[in-house]
């Protein structure tokens, strides 16, 4: 169920990329800075023009409105953006977020009323994960989800995201610079070379 299939994906001068991530599987993606990992994620989420086919099972990206695709296949950018003053205004319904998810990421229910301008980078990042999961996405594209987090919070995020993937049978594409992290969360791993091409990582 819910397999993410990327076929002959090309954008700019990159590609073709062809790979699939099964439901519940986590594919790690490593590579040098500037190799184009973020560009690949942006193309898959249909935020950049591209050619080739993107499918979630038999649902074709081009066959549905882009916003609908982006709700199903959600990308967590490396740095989150906030546009209103208060945290809860960025959510459809903050109260519907499971208490356990909040607690897992180190928050209590009072975070709903916090001013965005006073959040730290790490707090923003953890809240951005909750905000993304609120759409109940069927596949996750994670661009260095723990880059701005300390050890303890990193663990919470890893557990929450991995568990979300397993329980919802959702494919995960996890970009990280930390091989140890990918060892923990990823079932297999690809390495993006400087020219943008992908090869299997050694070791995993």
């Amino acid at each position: 169920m819910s397999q993410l299939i990327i076929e002959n994906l090309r954008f700019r001068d990159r590609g073709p990329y062809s790979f699939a991530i099964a439901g519940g599987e986590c594919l790690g993606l490593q590579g040098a800075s500037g190799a184009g990992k973020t560009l690949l994620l942006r193309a898959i989420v249909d935020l950049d023009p591209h050619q080739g086919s993107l499918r979630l099972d038999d649902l074709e990206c081009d066959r549905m409105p882009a916003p609908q695709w982006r709700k199903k296949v959600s990308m967590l950018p490396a740095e989150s953006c906030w546009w209103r003053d208060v945290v809860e205004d960025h959510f459809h319904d903050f109260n519907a977020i499971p208490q356990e998810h909040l607690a897992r990421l180190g928050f209590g229910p009072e975070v709903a009323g916090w001013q965005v301008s006073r959040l730290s980078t790490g707090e923003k990042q953890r809240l951005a994960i909750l905000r993304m999961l609120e759409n109940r996405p069927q596949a996750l594209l994670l661009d260095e989800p723990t880059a701005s987090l300390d050890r303890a919070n990193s663990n919470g995020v890893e557990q929450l995201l991995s568990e979300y993937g397993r329980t919802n049978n959702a494919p995960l594409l996890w970009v990280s610079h930390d091989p140890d992290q990918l060892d923990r969360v990823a079932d297999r791993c690809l390495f993006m070379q400087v020219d943008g091409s992908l090869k299997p990582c050694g070791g995993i």
Partner: protein
Amino acid sequence: MGVKPLSAFDLSLAAGLVVALALCSWRLRLGLEKRMVISALRTTVQLLLIGQVLRVLFAHASFPFVFAISMVMLMVAGREVGARQHRRIKGFSGWLLGTGSMFVSSFAVAFFALAIVIANDPWYTPQYAIPLLGMLLGNTMNGIALSMDRLTESLWQQRRMVEQRLLLGQTSLEAIHELRQQAMRSGMIPIINSMAAAGLVSLPGMMTGQILGGSSPMDAVKYQILIMFLICAGTGFGVVTAITLTCRKLFDDRQRLRLEVLQKQ
């Protein structure tokens, strides 16, 4: 009746004031003296030329002639809208967008005023049509240039925020909702303010001119009220059209933000 004619000597007295200010700017190193003198010369030459054109036009009130003049005015205004934007949409479509919005709103409002409200015979009587269209175009041009500049600039600066909202599954219209509102407001607020201040703070130029020309103050006032309403409607609808079209241009059919359609000048 009729206005007391001004001689070239009268005008040169007033020009002396500008020269004095230019000297002052030179002393204070404001660096504006050259631009000030050139602009003053341009005012003189351009207005003298348009005076000649209008004299001929008023003598031969033919529709093609009036139409041709109004097209020239539109083209110049369209160029000006593009020139006033820090980042404008590349190519012909960018020009067409601003000019087209101006054309639709200004010409529709001017036609409505001339044919239905003032109802001269013929409706395109140039003594009415040209000044009316000129005032409409001038104000619509300001509004559209201001609002488009505001939209493209704020979108450029807040592109990450807009893309974040797209990533969360918002449509392009939802993602730029506030930016769009602010842009439209910034285009309309100047005319709303000048309607509110009219008569109290400033006597509008057209009314002043009419009174100097010998019209009764009440006639002049009624025309000024008409003009204010027309300018408000023309600017407002022009701004709404221009911003709506610009927003559409800045996203593609897959609702991706396409900032590469903008070029910096």
